[in-house]
């Protein structure tokens, strides 16, 4: 066996004349954990698809196990032991765990009748390989994201995998689940299987990988040992920009809180939560997935009205029973999931921006087209949304630009209080810094901002105070000026 298990050298790939990969090289040693990083659209996914035979390269060479591979088909890749676990896991949600695991071998054997006993045996062997405890008869759709991922990993292992490629495997996992996944990855490594771990999350790259490769705009920027890497260098390789990280401290705050919450309760989600935010402040709210942080956000915005407690806005008690009431009270809300809650993807960028303030852009009954256009142009410019035409669909933009649209939608409503649930989930590092800068600027102009996030560096960097939730109750309120991440973690867990 040579030094490298996989060598993809000087790979070029064009799509309809657009250069997706410009002579990139990726080398993976046997049994190593290698991290491939880069912002959205940098060519990571394209390279994976070339290695797994989904796309064909335009030029360059690929060697696997010392053998040159000329034309790779998906079947070739699987036969050689290359397995890809995609973000959506490519599993059948309506079948049971057992069926999902055994279906490939059943298909491969070209059997017309199902041998249930045999299937169970195959499935049992598969889960045993990583000590994965699961009910084989459970329907897959009922499992958690993490469990689905485990099923996908088990399935990958059934084919004598030598290299497992994981495409952003931690995107929708909780902290605990990520740790469980990392344990499995280390187990696989111990069995001599190489892992290509695709991610753009700094902390994960540092924690799990031995070597890394960074792409930017289809080019190889840097490859090396993770030990030689630090935060600053990594951000620079990813974006080509240098960032100064400084913790936000409010420049001036209002005397009275703009939003105050006393003993707020939502049955079966959270109880007795109290806090207040002044204008000019950024409050962080953090906690694990089951801490009630998302439900708290939904209650403040009236999507799931609180069942007990009081909310004061400008000192006056209000009952927020629907999003309309929240908007009337000048509360804006950037939801957690951009795709299913934040954006009308196939509709134009412009419509997405003005929809929440649309009732103000009328003269009597008619829509005022020129004022609509003014508003759209203003926000596209102010938020620096990178588009040639605001009439284009929102789906044409990258995650970072899409998040700017959602932000613009709410800023257009001129809120006093802006609540953001996971403001930079799935956003590339460059845009993430830009969004943080925008939020800090808004606070400096007097807005009260609440950031709900489980991204602790984000909370530490942007919030002046942080409220920690655990099992639906307050587990502490700290000032970020004089604490460390681990102090927050202690209270979260």
């Amino acid at each position, binding site marked *: 066996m040579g030094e490298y298990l996989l060598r993809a050298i000087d790979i070029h790939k064009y799509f309809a004349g657009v250069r997706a990969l410009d002579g990139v090289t990726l080398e993976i040693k046997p049994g190593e954990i290698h991290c491939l990083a880069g912002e959205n659209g940098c060519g990571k996914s394209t390279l994976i698809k070339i290695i797994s035979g989904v796309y064909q390269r335009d030029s360059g060479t690929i060697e696997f196990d010392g053998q040159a591979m000329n034309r790779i088909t998906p079947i070739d890749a699987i036969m050689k032991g290359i397995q890809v676990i995609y973000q959506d896991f490519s599993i059948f949600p309506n079948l049971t765990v057992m069926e999902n695991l055994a279906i490939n071998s059943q298909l491969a054997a070209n059997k017309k009748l199902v041998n249930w006993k045999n299937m169970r045996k195959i499935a049992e062997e598969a889960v045993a390989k990583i000590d994965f405890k699961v009910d084989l008869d459970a329907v897959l759709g009922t499992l958690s994201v993490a469990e689905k991922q485990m099923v996908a990993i088990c399935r990958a292992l059934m084919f004598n995998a030598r290299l497992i490629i994981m495409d952003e495997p931690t995107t929708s996992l909780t902290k605990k689940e990520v740790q469980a996944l990392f344990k499995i990855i280390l187990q696989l490594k111990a069995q001599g299987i190489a892992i290509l771990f695709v991610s753009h999350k700094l902390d994960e790259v540092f924690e799990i990988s031995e070597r890394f490769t960074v792409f930017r705009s289809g080019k190889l920027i840097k490859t090396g040992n993770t030990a030689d890497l630090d935060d600053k260098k990594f951000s620079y390789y990813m974006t080509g920009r240098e960032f100064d990280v400084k913790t936000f401290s409010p420049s001036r705050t209002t005397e009275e809180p703009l939003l105050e919450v006393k003993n707020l309760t939502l049955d079966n989600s959270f109880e007795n939560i109290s806090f207040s935010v002044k204008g000019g402040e950024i409050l962080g709210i953090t906690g694990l997935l089951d801490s009630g942080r998302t439900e708290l956000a939904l209650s403040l915005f009236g999507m799931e009205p609180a069942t007990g407690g009081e909310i004061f806005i400008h000192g006056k008690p209000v009952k927020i029973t629907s999003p309309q009431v929240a908007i009337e009270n000048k509360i804006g809300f950037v939801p957690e999931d951009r795709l299913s*809650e*934040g954006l009308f*993807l196939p509709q134009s960028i412009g419509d997405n921006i003005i929809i929440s303030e*649309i009732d103000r852009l009328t003269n009597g009954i008619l829509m005022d087209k020129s004022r609509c256009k003014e508003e759209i142009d203003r926000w596209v410019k102010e938020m620096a949304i990178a588009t040639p035409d605001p009439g284009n669909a929102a789906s044409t933009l990258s995650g970072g630009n899409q998040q700017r649209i959602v932000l613009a939608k709410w800023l257009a409503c001129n809120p006093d209080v802006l609540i953001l649930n996971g403001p930079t989930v799935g956003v590339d590092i460059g845009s993430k810094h830009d969004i943080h800068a925008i939020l800090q600027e808004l606070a400096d102009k007097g807005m009260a901002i609440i950031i709900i996030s489980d991204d602790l560096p984000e909370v530490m960097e942007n919030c002046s105070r942080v409220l920690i939730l655990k099992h639906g109750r307050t587990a502490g309120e700290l000032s970020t000026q004089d604490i460390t991440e681990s102090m927050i973690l202690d209270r979260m867990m």
Partner: protein
Amino acid sequence: MENKQAGAGSKIKNIYKSDRHMWRLIIIMILWFVFMAVTKFSKFYTVVNFQTMFAQFPEFGLMSLGVMVCMITGGIDLSTVGVANMTGISMALLMQWASGESQELSPIWILIVFVLAILIGMVTGAINGILVSKVHIPPILATLGTGQLFTGLGLVMTNGSAISGFPSTYAFSINNRVAGIPVQFLIFVVVAIVMAFLLSKTTYGKKLMLIGTNENVAKFSGLKVDHILIKTYTLSGICSALGGMIMLANYNSARSDYGSNYTLQCILIVVLGGVSPNGGKGKISGVLLAIFLVRALETGINRFPQISSYYISLIWGAVLIFVMVLNYFTENNVKLFSKKKA
């Protein structure tokens, strides 16, 4: 020279691509009119024939406009024909009662029945809207149920037979022409203009489109989704009721099973007009064109005595499937006749 031609070619292609549904309809329409000109010119191209067409299509044209707004929200209205017939029957009974033995009806009654018809449409539509938005019944089931309910009400009111003994004043005034233009068509034009206005000039139209795209995002954007859905189904109810009033005039009678194939025909028209059954997409111009095209097709087919009218249902079913398959290919950019890229 060659370059220039290629440029012009791609320009035409771009115009076509900018609104495929529209252009496809226009092309089909032209082809059909040419075909009719070649085969049955003298029978098809007469003033009377066109006047008849323009008097006939408003009845299902109005219903199609109703189905259109519902489909833009991602829903559907299958109760249109039920609402139309129930409205027609109750208004026929009312006019029978009002005229008494004399068989005379003062013209003011025509205004009264239209206002009442609109009210019936509003109530039935609002019921649909409430079932869909507040009770969360899938639109296809909610409106199938209410459609059956309204048809049944009509049956009970008539004992299944046709109501025809009401004063001819009504049919006479609606089945009339103003300067050669059928009154039915004028009613249709008024409704179509109101619809076009609502869809393109008001915030309601924009909200409708966005709710159809993604109801959940609409809620998170602070739109009153339930309110707008109820409004939409109410609008559809009004369209259906007016369609029923035109049917009443055209047949000069009312019966619970009139126009039973209009349900399918309305859906065909709306889909043909470029409204996506998944919601969030559609223009009234396409639907108007489709309404006229369907009428022209049917009238044209009727000019061929060798094709029995029993074939009409079969043809509409086939066309609906064909259009949806075609939409699938254009929307997913699948090229049917070009070689696969290596």
